[in-house]
């Protein structure tokens, strides 16, 4: 037991299932006092679940709890509510700021833990009516702000402060809690500018030097190399490795994060008779910006050749999803987009559709489907609106041709093997995989020359996954369709794409061949190629 005392937090053999879905499997996390420990992994590696367990979130305990033990300062504890975690001195700095804009810095820091004196009214009706000791509160706030080196007045209003400051106030609030031993930073630098991020890292060092341990969740390798003492890498809910930063390298970490998994989800069938040429460009982007919230594209130059399967990968929030959404005109864009040599007027909605570009959205239920309408309606809708298909002319009127639409929907259902009770079933009632096939069917009904597919396999089971990917390959090989797959799942990109562009921080950080090494992908995804230069 003696050696356990060395760690402030020890989570051992943690496993967690949501229904039949194993999200964590035998994961361990050990952190020493005063150390900055980086917790790393791709999206869906299990980082948030692990933190939810640490904080005793209700989502864990209402879904059957977890297996494994948690020790704080060598003592086994049972954290079943967030309150318990707080009492044990575990704090969290949220990615989204949980601050009240109309309150002052002090009020935000001390909210819920105000210092107060009893008065006449409070003796009658209880402590909720006690007088606030504003001076004592301001003193506490001042102290917390000084600890992290933030020089602003404690009486300033939070509204109007720069984003970077808000993050610091969050941290100050956690530090102000008595007996804080461990602070979790959940991707704190994601929303900060570079100089703000540097100051934040500096503040983290200061906090750690006072003996408070820090769990630092991030994707950015260079930040880890800069501030962390040690790190744990998770992948697909499994523990991969624990390393001391001094004994490892960025390349090794990148390799650990990506890892070798079952390669080639799809076996290429038949001969590849395509001839791709750098002079025959289907989609060309120049200095392309998209203002999509959470997925900003900040100046992309890309050339996608006619007839290839092009992959766009990268971590969530880096901007890969913004690329197709911008082309389809769903968000404001700037820059130049050329489809088959012709410049698109992106201010006109539906311009891309008329240029024979189709899109399968990543937001299936939100954008991709009319949930309350039939499969038939969903499949024929776009073609009806864009190409006037499935209409018949009666006099001057152009009316919906139900017979033609039904026949086509039936054909698509058979072709894509959509499991349903019939083409009149509501799309909302289908399983995820079948909904995705309906979305795909709608896009194909447009007879596109260029097909953007965004997160084609998100939330669908492995069988449907394989079928969708195989079908995309088939479309590409047999009909010469240019297919652009945007996905967070590197494995699927690597199994079907000819080239893969990795997007990091709104820009293309590299265009790689699917056979490139894991380290190259890892580095590109972490954006270390550009930023690495600065930090050495």
């Amino acid at each position, binding site marked *: 037991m003696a050696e356990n005392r060395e760690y402030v937090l020890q989570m051992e053999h943690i496993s967690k299932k949501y229904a039949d879905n194993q999200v964590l499997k035998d994961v361990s996390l050990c952190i020493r006092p005063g150390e900055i420990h980086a917790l790393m992994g791709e999206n869906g590696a299990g980082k948030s679940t692990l933190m939810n367990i640490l904080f005793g979130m209700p989502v864990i305990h209402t879904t059957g709890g977890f297996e494994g033990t948690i020790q704080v300062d060598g003592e086994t504890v049972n954290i079943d509510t967030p309150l318990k975690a707080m009492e044990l001195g575990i704090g969290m700095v949220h990615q989204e700021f949980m601050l009240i804009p109309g309150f002052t810095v002090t009020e935000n820091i001390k909210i819920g833990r105000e210092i107060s004196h009893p008065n006449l009214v409070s003796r009658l009706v209880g402590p909720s009516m006690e007088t606030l000791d504003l001076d004592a509160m301001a003193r506490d706030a001042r102290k917390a702000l000084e600890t992290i080196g933030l020089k602003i007045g404690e009486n300033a209003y939070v509204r109007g402060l720069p984003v970077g400051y808000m993050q610091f106030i969050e941290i100050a609030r956690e530090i102000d809690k008595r007996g804080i031993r461990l602070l979790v930073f959940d991707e704190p630098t994601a929303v900060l500018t570079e100089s703000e991020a540097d100051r934040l890292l500096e503040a983290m060092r200061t906090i750690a030097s006072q003996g408070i341990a820090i769990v630092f969740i991030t994707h950015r390798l260079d930040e880890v190399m800069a501030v962390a003492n040690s790190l744990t890498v998770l992948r697909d809910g499994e523990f991969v490795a624990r390393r001391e930063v001094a004994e490892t390298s960025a390349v090794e970490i990148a390799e650990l994060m990506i890892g070798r998994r079952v390669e080639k989800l799809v076996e290429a069938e038949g001969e590849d008779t395509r001839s791709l040429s750098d002079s025959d460009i289907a989609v060309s982007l120049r200095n392309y910006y998209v203002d999509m919230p959470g997925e900003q594209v900040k100046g992309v130059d890309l050339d996608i050749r006619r007839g290839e399967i092009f992959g766009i990968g990268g971590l969530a929030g880096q901007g890969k999803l913004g690329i197709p959404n911008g082309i389809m005109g769903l968000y404001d864009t700037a820059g130049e987009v050329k489809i088959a040599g012709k410049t698109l007027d992106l201010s006109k909605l539906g311009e891309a559709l008329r240029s024979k570009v189709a899109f399968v959205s990543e937001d299936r239920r939100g*954008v*991709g489907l*009319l949930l309350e309408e039939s499969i038939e309606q969903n499949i024929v809708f776009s073609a*009806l*609106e864009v190409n006037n298909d499935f209409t018949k002319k009666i006099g001057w009127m152009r009316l919906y041709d139900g017979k033609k639409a039904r026949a086509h929907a039936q054909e698509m259902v058979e072709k894509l093997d959509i499991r349903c009770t019939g083409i009149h079933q509501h799309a909302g009632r289908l399983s995820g995989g079948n909904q995705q096939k309906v979305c795909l069917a709608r896009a194909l009904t447009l007879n596109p020359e260029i097909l953007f597919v965004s997160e084609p396999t998100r939330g669908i089971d492995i069988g449907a996954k394989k079928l969708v990917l195989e079908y995309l390959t088939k479309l590409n090989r047999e009909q010469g369709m240019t297919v652009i797959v945007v996905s967070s799942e590197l494995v699927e990109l690597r199994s079907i794409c000819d080239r893969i562009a990795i997007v990091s921080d709104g820009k293309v950080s590299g265009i790689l061949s699917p056979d490139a090494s894991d380290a190259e992908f890892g580095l590109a995804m972490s954006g270390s190629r550009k930023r690495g230069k600065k930090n050495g």
Partner: protein
Amino acid sequence: MAENAKKFVARFGLPRVIIVGFFLLLVVCAGAFQMDLLQIFSDCIRRWGMYGILALAMVPAIQCGIGPNFGITMGIVGGLLGGLIVIEYRVTENAALLALGTQLLGEENGPFLAKWAAVLLAILIGVILATGIGWLYGLLLNRVKGSEMTVTTYVGFSIIAFMNIIWTVIPFKSGELIFPNAGQGMRNTISLASSFSEVMNKTLAFRIGPEGHCLTIPTGLLLFFFLVCFLVWLFMRSKTGVAMSAAGANPAFARASGINVNRMRLIGTTLSTVLAAVGILVYAQGFGFMQLYNGPMMMGFTSVAAVLIGGASPNRAAIFHVLLGTFLFQGIMALGLPVANQFIPESNLSEVMRLIISNGIIIYSLTQTQGGGSRG
């Protein structure tokens, strides 16, 4: 058996089962009180045709995504103006039309032609005015996305207040319209006896049974109602109609298919307003009077209630909901008054019942739509 009954209730909807049950109960009561059932049924059918188009105005509004249009009074004032203009210029007394009518239809039915010309002209003027009003109204609604229901309600009330001023100063001269004894301003209730009163109701009307104890079918009225329903049904199957429904069901989806959602909402709102203008004239001719001032104030509520009783939700509505809902709602009104008067003579129980049913059903259907969440 119980299983089947449950399935039936689930498909037909519990409120409809209750309302149909209530309707049948009223029929039984009326029979027990030995009332003239045939005449009551005639009244049901007449009201069905009269109120139908006003309820139909909800279909494009709900389908395009603005939800139940409590502000159909916007279109109603357009229709009323159309009617007033026709009376002011005495279209029904036009000698040429009367002569032509006599020539074509014979002495007895001669005035019908002029009356039809008058009502159709009134509808035409009403439609033109309502198109303009509806377009502006649609522009407003595009700026208040998410709170349309509140806004339509207040806009509906506001236009009534505004028109209350207009009615007093509008420079019509006809003695039929202005207050008698050289008064100024429009009357509260304007008789259509000399213009197009009951022109649709009486066209091709026939009786089943002996005079005084018979079922009267207002064929012309019903045909006109069904014709408008058919036109709206055709529109909903056109390319624009399909796009409009999609824009209402899921704006993000519609945008991804290159549809201008705001334009679709404008079209839907305008169409709804236009239908309201047509609807009020059909109502007025059946009623025999045009009511100005606060008369049409609550028309929006009864129309919304009717279509909701028929099974529509604030997000989805179909012509079938209009047909069923208007019949049930107006049927209960027609039956309710005489039956209630038998229970408590000299009471206004039926008016109380109307308010409870129409407001109750609106509240019920609003609570039912929470958590649907398919509309971004």
